[in-house]
C-alpha cells in the first residue's frame, strides 16, 4: 500500500515537471518567433527613394513645361517678360506639394535678367535631399529666333 502511494506521488511529480517543461518550451518558442518579427520590424527602414523621387519630379516638371508650351503660352511669357504669368501658370499646373525655382538662360548659359520665379522658401530647396532639375529649350517667339533655356528646379515639400 505504501509502495503504491509512493509510486503515485512519483508519477504526479513527473507529470508536473513535464507540464512545466512544455510551458517553458512554448514560451521559448514564442520568444524566438516574436524576437524574429521584432527584428524585422526594427530593421525595416524606409527605402532610399531619392533617385525615384528625383526622376518623378523631373517627369512632372517636363510635362508641365511641355503643356504650357503646347498651349502657345510658354514662348509668350518668356519673350514678353510676363514672368508673373509664368510663375502663376507653374503654380497652378504643378501639384500643391511641389515647390519650384525657375531660371532662364540664353544658349551660352548666361542668365537672362528676370525677377525671382520661385514657389516655396529657399530653405526647402537648401534642406531637401532630392532636388530635380529640368532643362527646357524654347527656340523663339513669333518670327524671331532667339533660343532660351529654362531650368526648372523642383522639390517636394
Amino acid at each position: 500500500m505504501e509502495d503504491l502511494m509512493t509510486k503515485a506521488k512519483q508519477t504526479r511529480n513527473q507529470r508536473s515537471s513535464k507540464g512545466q517543461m512544455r510551458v517553458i518550451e512554448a514560451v521559448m518558442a514564442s520568444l524566438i518567433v516574436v524576437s524574429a518579427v521584432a527584428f524585422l520590424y526594427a530593421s525595416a527602414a524606409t527605402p532610399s527613394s531619392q533617385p525615384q523621387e528625383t526622376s518623378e519630379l523631373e517627369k512632372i516638371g517636363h510635362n508641365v513645361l511641355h503643356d504650357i508650351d503646347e498651349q502657345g503660352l510658354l514662348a509668350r511669357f518668356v519673350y514678353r517678360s510676363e514672368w508673373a504669368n509664368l510663375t502663376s501658370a507653374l503654380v497652378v499646373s504643378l501639384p500643391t506639394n511641389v515647390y519650384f525655382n525657375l531660371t532662364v538662360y540664353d544658349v551660352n548659359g548666361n542668365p537672362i535678367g528676370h525677377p525671382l520665379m520661385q514657389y516655396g522658401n529657399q530653405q526647402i530647396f537648401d534642406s531637401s535631399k532630392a532636388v530635380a532639375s529640368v532643362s527646357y529649350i524654347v527656340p523663339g517667339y513669333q518670327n524671331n529666333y532667339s533660343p532660351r533655356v529654362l531650368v526648372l528646379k523642383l522639390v517636394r515639400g
Partner: protein
Amino acid sequence: MRAARGKKGQFIIIAALMLSIMILAVSTVIYGTVTYYRQERWEEYVTIVDSIKTASSNLLQIGLANYSQTSNPYVLRDYFNQWMRDVRKAYPGLGVDLSYSLASGIRSAYGVNLNYSLGLARTWNQQVSFSASDATVSIDVASMGLTGYNFSSHAFLKMNIRDAVWYSKESKRYVLIYISVEKEGPEAVVTLQKSNFGVKLSGVTPPAFSVKRYYSRTYSGFIYEIQVNSIDALPSSAEITLQDTRGIKTVSYTTNIQQSSD
C-alpha cells in the same frame, strides 16, 4: 523515457527557429521586391529628346512666320543651321547632334499640293490661300547611344474665303465676307481676333470693319464673318490678310463677290 521527452522539447525549439528563419527570409525577399527601383539612365534622355523635338517643331512655325512676313526664302535653312549649333551648346556633354532635311518640290499637305522650296511654301492671293513649312529632323544623342531618331514636322495655315456678298438694302449697303481658317491637323483656328485680320475692298482699306466668329451649319464649321459697312457700290475684289497668333501670315483674294438685296 527521459531521453524521448528531451528530444521532443528540442524539436519545438528547432521548429520555432526554422519558422523564424523562414519569416526573415520571406520578409527580406518581399521587402526587396516592393522597394525595388532601378534608375534607368535613358529616362532623363527621354525628356531631352522630347524637348528638342517640340522646340524643332516650334522652329518651323517661327521660320514660317518670318518667311510669311519678310519673304526671305532662306530663313528656315538659316534658322536650322543656327539651331544645330545652339542645341549642342544648350546640352553640353551629352553629345547631342541634330541634322535636318527641308522639304523640296511638290508635296501634299492636308489634301493640298504645295510646291516647297527650302522647306517653305505659300500660295497667296487666291480664294483659298496657304502658308506652310515642312522638315524632317534627325536627333543623335551619343552619350546614350541614340542615333537617327527621325521625325517629320510641319506648320500650316489655310484661309478660305467661303463667300463674299455685297448687301444693298434700302439705305444700308455693306459687305459680308465669310472666312474659315485652319492650321496643321487640320484643325480649325478659333482664337483669332479682329486685330489678326486686314481687309481691302477694290484695293482700298476701309476705315472700319467688324469680325464675328460662330459655328455655321451652312459651312459645317467655325466661320469668321467680316462686315464692312458703308460700301456704296459692288466691290470688284476683296483681299483678306490674316496673321495668326503664331505670327504666320497668309493672304486670300477673290473677285467673286455676290450681290444681294434680301
